[in-house]
């Protein structure tokens, strides 16, 4: 087998160079969040980790991530001990910045390794496509913006997720796939959104006999159950002994937050809010009543309150129910045909459902959809057709995360570069589908992608020139409504592809 160029390692080297150059870039409060966690885990005994609240950025990730922070802090001690003082709020010496930024780059090696596993697990004609998909994930503008500028450790965790997805490809490694995913859940609970797909897939493909769903493979069940119990025991056990589980859960699941985040993630609720805003203007003419109190909160949607002026309010219960329903639909098919491709499709659709209907979804969660989808986007042109609007919408929706002028060229040029490069490459690599394309969907996606150009220009330049500082919510609202159309459109498209292939 001839090598495919450029190799993942080569891309990783050049990407790392760019990421190091981005060290002085803007960083969000997440940087301080993680510094604080380093300090908490390093200086306090285990029992106080989830009670400490000197800084407002309390520890709200599951214990395995806290252990990870503790490990990192052992090195941090050697770099600059001052960053490990809990009371040193907002501390950012250059050593701290270098160190924390470096840890992101180094832990991301896990992603490179997992992607290499993914390429190696593909064979024949699909290997080139897998290679291209792997590079697209490695160079993802989402990871660059969220991890290397905004600051978080998603690269490392998506590495674990991809490794786990790849391990599910083989019957012999399926157990490890499940265990790895359990460990991932203990690092960041957002992956719970994908758990239903894992549950169904492992149940059908690992715990039940391939021949009949009524024959249970007991040994496999015991292995999987014991393994998962051991992992959760390691993570939560020490805290359970002290009876701290309720405290941990109150940190992990803060239900007091509002339906939409301060900036609307591009999901169904963003469209719902948008329609509500439009109805505020139209309501008097068509005779609908407007709730006065809600008018004040236009687009604020600040943590805690999102009230709608015309449309009925949405409760967490409704969100939860809708998410479960739309997750359940693809899982039925997965249960009947537990192939790896269906599994990845189901994981993607679980991600979609939770992103589109979830309560207080953050725009960063769009990676939960884009990254699993990338693994199968090149299966054929129909998949690619559904992927394209998502790639555009998902990444454009991340732009408001960075609002400083210095980072503006980075986020836009990098994203445009990535979109041109990979949409062009994917277009050449994706094989034709054996089934007919469905009517007009390609036209829709081309038109949709074209609209993004004037939209970006308006939001970043024209609006500022015309309105100055007033109506600041307008570009945000346009961006998220536009992106919401793309994400929802690609979801519908992918649902059709999933059920017809």
């Amino acid at each position, binding site marked *: 087998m001839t090598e495919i160029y450029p190799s993942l390692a080569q891309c990783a080297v050049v990407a790392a160079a760019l990421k190091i150059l981005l060290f002085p870039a803007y960083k969000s409060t997440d940087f301080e969040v993680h510094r604080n966690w380093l300090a908490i885990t390093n200086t306090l005994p285990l029992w106080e980790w989830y009670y400490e609240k000197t800084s407002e950025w309390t520890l709200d990730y599951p214990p395995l991530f806290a252990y990870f922070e503790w490990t990192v802090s052992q090195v941090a001690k050697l770099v600059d001990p001052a960053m490990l003082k809990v009371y040193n709020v907002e501390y950012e010496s250059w050593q701290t910045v270098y160190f924390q930024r470096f840890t992101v780059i180094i832990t991301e090696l896990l992603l490179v390794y997992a992607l290499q596993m993914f390429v190696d697990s593909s064979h024949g004609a699909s290997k080139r496509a897998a290679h*291209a998909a792997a590079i697209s994930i490695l160079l993802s503008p989402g990871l660059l913006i969220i991890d290397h500028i905004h600051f978080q450790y998603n690269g490392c965790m998506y590495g674990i997720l991809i490794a786990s997805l790849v391990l599910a490809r083989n019957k012999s490694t399926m157990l490890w796939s499940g265990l790895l995913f359990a460990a991932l859940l203990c690092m960041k609970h957002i992956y719970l959104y994908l758990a239903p797909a894992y549950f169904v897939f492992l149940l059908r493909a690992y715990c039940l006999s391939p021949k009949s769903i009524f024959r249970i493979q007991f040994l496999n069940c015991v292995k999987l159950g014991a393994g998962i119990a051991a992992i959760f025991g390691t993570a939560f056990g020490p805290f359970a002994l002290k009876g701290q589980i309720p405290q941990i859960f109150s940190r992990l699941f803060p239900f007091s937050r509002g339906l939409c985040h301060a900036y609307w993630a591009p999901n169904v609720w963003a469209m719902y809010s948008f329609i509500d805003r439009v109805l505020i203007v139209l309501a008097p003419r068509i005779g609908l009543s407007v709730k006065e109190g809600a008018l004040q909160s236009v687009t604020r949607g600040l943590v805690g309150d999102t009230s709608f002026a015309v449309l009925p309010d949405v409760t967490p219960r409704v969100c939860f129910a809708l998410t479960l329903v739309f997750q359940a639909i693809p899982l039925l098919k997965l249960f009947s045909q537990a192939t790896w491709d269906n599994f990845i499709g189901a994981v993607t659709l679980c991600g979609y459902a939770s992103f589109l209907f979830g309560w207080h979804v953050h725009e960063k969660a769009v990676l939960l959809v884009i990254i699993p989808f990338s693994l199968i986007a090149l299966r054929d042109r129909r998949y690619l057709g559904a992927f394209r609007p998502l790639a555009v919408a998902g990444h454009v929706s991340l732009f408001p995360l960075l609002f400083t002028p210095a980072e503006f060229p980075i986020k836009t040029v990098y994203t445009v570069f990535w979109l041109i490069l990979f949409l062009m*490459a994917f277009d050449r690599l994706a094989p034709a589908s054996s089934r007919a394309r469905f009517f007009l969907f390609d036209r829709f996606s081309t038109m949709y992608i074209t609209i993004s150009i004037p939209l970006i220009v308006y939001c970043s330049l024209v609006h500022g020139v015309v309105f100055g500082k007033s109506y600041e919510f307008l570009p945000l609202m346009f961006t998220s409504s536009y992106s919401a159309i793309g994400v929802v459109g690609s979801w519908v498209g992918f649902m059709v592809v999933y059920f017809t292939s």
Partner: protein
Amino acid sequence: MARSSPSPHKPRRKPKQAGYATSSLSNVSTVETMARTPAFPLAAFLWPARGTVSQWELLPLILMAVGLFRWAAGLWGYSGFEKPPIFGDYEAQRHWMEITTQLPISQWYFHDLQWWGLDYPPLTAYHSWLCGKIGSLIDPSWFALFSSRGSHDPTLKVFMRATVIVSEYLIYVPAVVVFVRRYSRLSGVANWSASVALVAILMQPATILIDHVHFQYNTVMLGLVVASMSSMLAGRNLWAAVFFVAALGFKQMALYYAFSVFAYLLGSCVFPRINLPRLIAIAAVTAVSFVILILPFVIGTLSDLKSGIDSRPDIDGPRPPLPLFQGLADYLDTEAFYYPVVEQLVQMVHRIFPFARGLFEDKVANFWCALNVLVKINKYPAELLQRGALLATLASIIPPNLVLFFRPRRELLPLAFASTAWGFFLFSYQVHEKSVLLPLMPMTLLLAGSHGLNKNNRTWVGFANILGCWTMFPLLQRVDLAMPYTVLTLLWAYLLGLPPTSLGVYFHEGGNTWSQWVTAFIHGAFYLAMALWHVLAQSVRPPPDKPDLWVVANVGIGAAGFSLCYLWCVGRLVVQSEILPRSWFGKKDKAKTQ
């Protein structure tokens, strides 16, 4: 990525016809395109683009990628950041935007010379005026007279960085793209190899570090020089003269190339037969370009005079004598209407060419500074030193320019420009360490030439560039730029498969093994010395009586390495021009490698 693979499906759109342009040249395609695997990582990155991808799809991606690295590097600090009282180059450029937008034109070269007085030629002043006008639209306080001095407003930094990158994308980048296209066609290099060379040239670390990190507008001047060379390649000698005058008018440093421009243009009027009309046309166009360049100053001075604006409001009483050419005053009527114009132009020359300063200013890796380590040359009278510098410079630049004059061939331009610029850099007067950008530019352009990407050429171009960055390390270190220095230099070395990231470039099959070993040995010694120097300078404090020990060591090693680069360029020039009888070649070649 691998777009060259035969897709199992039929694409709905037919691929563009650009592939045919490549195939017409395929009979001369270089070793790199024939190879089965990419020879160095940069080639691997462009590997999927071989053959089927059109230049017009590739070029925007290349420009975006190199732009990203530039902008990201610009996030780091700049020269003089929060270093009062005088700050640095960044403040100088900002200050010029301030004075050009706030003061009448006749005061530009006179205003408060102690605070970064304008000392670049007029085109820089016009460029500053334009940038300052645009910036004032965004925030007038950035360029308010006096009160804006030393401003470190972060948004101003973004604006200043943007002016550098926009100027570069308007001048340097298009000039390089066109040059690479023409030069590679001329040398029979395939499109794909030319794209690889283009990325290598645009990622040149020294240029990014000085312009986008440390802060200056060198690429504008370099771009105009490239445009001039590119016009020569196209046979448009008049345009070459115009562009070169513009380069000189932007930054006097372009004089480093002046001899080669002169030698080539004159040579092309003499050989193969004397072409007097061409000569006259070139001379006339050059003269007219100079006049247009200074015309705004002449008109501005006269109109300021008419409206009663004094060019030096700070001076009462009689006008001081001219700073230079004082003899002129005897022949001119100091009361005449044209006298202020003369005064203005003399002041301009006086500001641009600081004859009164020493032989060298800071520690710079040229011959004089290196010699100063051995013999304290500052004890000799300044005039003797100036004369010595003049003679040495002439001795070093006359041979390559004679070659170019007698063989005014287009393929020789980069080598001749590089040799001349190296001669100036090594031996002339008042050299700054940043001036190493001038010889590096034409030398790096060699990558786009015939066999430009083969190992022998890459070793030397790479060596010069990495050594060049290394000699600028003390300058960058002073403003805490060690990190971008490390990243950009290593990245370039990695992309081109050079030490310290790879040694493969020194060992290849075929060719003269003996000369390979000599090159490997010499370069190896230099790379080791550079690495060792970094380790020592980082960890060992120099003895108290020699506080500059590491800088001096840097200068000595740098000067020796640059001398080798000079010899290599001259040697290659002599061999390629075929000016010497063939029978001499064997000996000559070896003599140069040693």
